[in-house]
C-alpha cells in the first residue's frame, strides 16, 4: 500500500498565490482589441463617437424630453406661444391617430377594422410561429378563410348586419396593410406558378409566363398603377368599372408576382439536376416532383429574396398615393397641410412617427427571415 504523498510527482504543499494573468477578457480588453486596435480603427472610433455624441443628445431631447404630448392645434406646439423650447409635437399624432390608422372609416364601425387587424395578426403568428399547432389549419385559415372574412368585415354585408363601407372611406394604415397583405398573399402562389411556367417544357405556358414576367418587370409600378386607375376606365363601359382600390390591388398583385417569379426561378435553377432525375427515377409525376422534392428545397434557398420582395412591396405601397388612394404616409402628408396644424416643425414629428412605423414592420420581417434561415439550414450544413 503506497501513500499518495510519498510519490515524488505529487505535490505535498500548496504553492503560493500568484498574480492573476494579464487580462484576456472584459470590457477594457474588448475595447482595446476591437475599437483601438490600430491607428485607423482608433480614428474611426473617435469620429463615430463624436458624431453620436453630437447628434444623440439633441435627438433625445427633441423626441423624449421636451415634446408636447397632447395638442388640439399647432398653437399648442408653438415655442413662441408657450415661451419655452418645444421638441417633437407628438400631440399631432395623438389628435390624428384615428385618421392615420382607420382613414375615414365610420367611427362606430371601427371595431371591424380592429377585428380585421387582430385576425390578420392571429393568422400571421399561426403560420409563422414554428411551434404553433395545426399548421395546415393555420395555412387554410390565412390563405382561404381570412381573405373572405376580411373582405366581408371591411366592406360589409347588410344581410348579416354589417353596413356597407365603400372603399373610399378606407385609408391610412388600413389601406397600407390591405395592399401589402393582398400583394404578399397573391404574389407567392402566382409567382411560383409563373416561375414553373417559365421553366416549363410546354411552349405556350412558357411564352405566357415570359411575356407576363418581362412585361411587368419592364415597367415601373407607378405606370402599372396609373394604367389601372386612370387609363383602364377609358376602355370599359360605365357599369363595368371595378372599384379603384380593387384595380390597384390587382395591379400590385401582378407586379409583386412577377418579381416573386424571378426570385423563385433563382431557387429552381440552384437545385442540382440530380434531384430532378432522382425524383423521376422514383416514378414521381411533374407535380409530385415539384411539390415534394424541388420546391421545398428551392424556396428554402430563396427565403432572403422572398422576404426582400415583401419588404420592398410593403414600402412600395406608398406609391398608391399617386393615384389618389390614401395610404399611411399620404394621410400623414394630407393632415400636415391642414391649416390648423400647419407649422414649421410639425412635419418632423409626423415623419419620425411614419419612419418608426415602417421600420417596425420591415425590421420585423427581416428578423423573422433570418431566424427562418437558421432553422431551415440544418439540411445544408456541410
Amino acid at each position, binding site marked *: 500500500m503506497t501513500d499518495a504523498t510519498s510519490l515524488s510527482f505529487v505535490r505535498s504543499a500548496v504553492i503560493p498565490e500568484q498574480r492573476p494573468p494579464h487580462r484576456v477578457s472584459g470590457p477594457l480588453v474588448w475595447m482595446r482589441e476591437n475599437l483601438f486596435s490600430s491607428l485607423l480603427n482608433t480614428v474611426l472610433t473617435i469620429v463615430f463617437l463624436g458624431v453620436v455624441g453630437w447628434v444623440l443628445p439633441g435627438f433625445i431631447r427633441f423626441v423624449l424630453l421636451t415634446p408636447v404630448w397632447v395638442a388640439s392645434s399647432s398653437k399648442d406646439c408653438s415655442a413662441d406661444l408657450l415661451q419655452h423650447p418645444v421638441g417633437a409635437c407628438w400631440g399631432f399624432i395623438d389628435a390624428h391617430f384615428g*385618421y392615420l390608422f382607420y382613414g375615414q372609416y365610420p367611427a362606430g364601425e371601427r371595431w371591424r377594422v380592429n377585428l380585421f387587424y387582430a385576425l390578420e395578426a392571429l393568422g400571421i403568428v399561426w403560420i409563422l410561429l414554428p411551434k404553433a399547432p395545426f399548421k395546415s389549419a393555420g395555412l387554410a385559415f390565412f390563405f382561404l378563410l381570412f381573405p373572405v372574412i376580411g373582405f366581408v368585415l371591411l366592406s360589409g354585408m347588410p344581410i348579416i348586419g354589417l353596413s356597407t363601407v365603400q372603399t*373610399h372611406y378606407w385609408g391610412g394604415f388600413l389601406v397600407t396593410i390591405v395592399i401589402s397583405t393582398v400583394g404578399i398573399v397573391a404574389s407567392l402562389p402566382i409567382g411560383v406558378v409563373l416561375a414553373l411556367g417559365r421553366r416549363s417544357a410546354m411552349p405556350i405556358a412558357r411564352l405566357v409566363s415570359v411575356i407576363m414576367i418581362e412585361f411587368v418587370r419592364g415597367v415601373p409600378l407607378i405606370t402599372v398603377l396609373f394604367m389601372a386607375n386612370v387609363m383602364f376606365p*377609358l*376602355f370599359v363601359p*360605365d357599369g363595368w368599372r371595378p372599384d*379603384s382600390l380593387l384595380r390597384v390591388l390587382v395591379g400590385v398583385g401582378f407586379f409583386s408576382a412577377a418579381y416573386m417569379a424571378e426570385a423563385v426561378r433563382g431557387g429552381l435553377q440552384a437545385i442540382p439536376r440530380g434531384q430532378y432525375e432522382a425524383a423521376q427515377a422514383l416514378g414521381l409525376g411533374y407535380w409530385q416532383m415539384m411539390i415534394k422534392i424541388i420546391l421545398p428545397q428551392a424556396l428554402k434557398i430563396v427565403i432572403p429574396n422572398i422576404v426582400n420582395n415583401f419588404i420592398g412591396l410593403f414600402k412600395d405601397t406608398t406609391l398608391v*398615393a399617386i393615384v389618389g388612394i*390614401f395610404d399611411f404616409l399620404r394621410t400623414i402628408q394630407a393632415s400636415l397641410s*391642414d391649416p390648423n396644424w400647419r407649422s414649421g416643425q410639425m412635419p418632423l414629428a409626423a415623419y419620425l412617427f411614419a419612419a418608426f412605423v415602417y421600420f417596425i414592420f420591415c425590421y420585423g420581417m427581416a428578423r423573422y427571415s433570418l431566424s427562418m434561415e437558421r432553422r431551415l439550414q440544418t439540411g445544408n450544413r456541410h
Partner: protein
Amino acid sequence: MKKLIAAAVVAAASFGLVTGASAGTLDNVKAKGQLVCGANPGTAGFGVPDEKGNWTGLDVDYCRAIAAAIFNDPTKVKFVPLSSKDRFTALASGEVDVLIRNSTWTMSRETTLGVIWAGINFYDGQGFLVNKKLGVKSATDLDGATICVQQGTTTELNLADYFRATGKKYQVVTFGTSEEAVKAYDTGRCDAYTTDRSGLAADRLSMSKPDDHIILPEIISKEPLGPLVRQGDDQWLNLVKWVHYGLLVAEEDGITKANVDEKAKSDDPELKRVLGTDGKFGESLGLSNAWLVQIVKAVGNYGEIFERNVGPNTPLQLARASNALWNKGGLQYAPPIR
C-alpha cells in the same frame, strides 16, 4: 406625357369610348346615388382632412353643395383625390363627375383637354410675402429687394414681367422646390417670397414666427380657380354653374344657413324665385325647386363658405378682396335668377 395622355383621351372620346360623356351625367349621378367629385389631395383651405378625417375646404364645400342640390344630402359625395397630373384625364375618362380641385381656368386647357369650366369660385393670383420688420406696405416698395421663388414655374416668369413693367430693380434667388424656397425665406435669405396668394397664406403658417409676416395687397397674375366638367353635357354644365351662382345669389340676398327657412317664407318676389316658392327654376335644372334651400342649409352661402375655410378668422386669414361680391368691390358676380 401630358400631351400623349390628352391625345389618348381625345381619341378615346371621339370613338365614343368615353361613355360618361354620352349619357346624361345627372342621370348617372342619380342612378349611382352619389356624386363623384375630383378633389384636392391636400391643399390648405381648399381640400384637407381634419383630425377626424372629414374633408373640409372651399372646394370640398362646392362638392357638398352639388350633392345637396341633387340629393338634399351633402354627405352623398365620393371624394376622389387627384394629383395635378391625372386630374384632367380622370375627368375626361368619366372617373369623376366634376372636378373641383383649385384648377386654373386657361384657354389651352379648355380648347385641348375636352373640359369646360363652370365658373370661378376663387380668384387667386400671385402675391408677395414679406417680413413686417421691413416696413413694406406694398409691392411698389420692393425696389431693390431680394426675392425667393421656385425655379421653372410661371411664378418666376410673372415676377420678371411685373418688375419689368414697373421698372423696378430686384434680385431673384431660385430654388428647386417650394419647400426650399420657403425655408430660405424664413431663414432670412430673401426679403420676400412669391407664389399664389392662397399658397402664401398656407406657407406663412410654416414660418418659425407666422405673425411676423404679411401678404402684400398686390396681385401680379391671374389664377382663376373653379369647378369644371366634361364638354358635351350642357345640362350638367348648367347645374354646376348654377350651384355656383346660387351660392353667390344667396349671399347677395342675405340668405344664410341660419335664416334660410325664415327667408323661404318671405313674400319678397326675389326671395320667392330664388328659394323656389315661385317658378320652376329648380325643375328646369333637373332638380327640385327648393334646390337652393337645400344647398344653403347644407353649406351656407358663398360668403359663409369663404369665411369658414379661408377667411380672416381661419389660420389662412385671407381677405375677400377680389372674391367679394361685385357690389362690395369684388369680382364675384352672378346672373339673376329669374
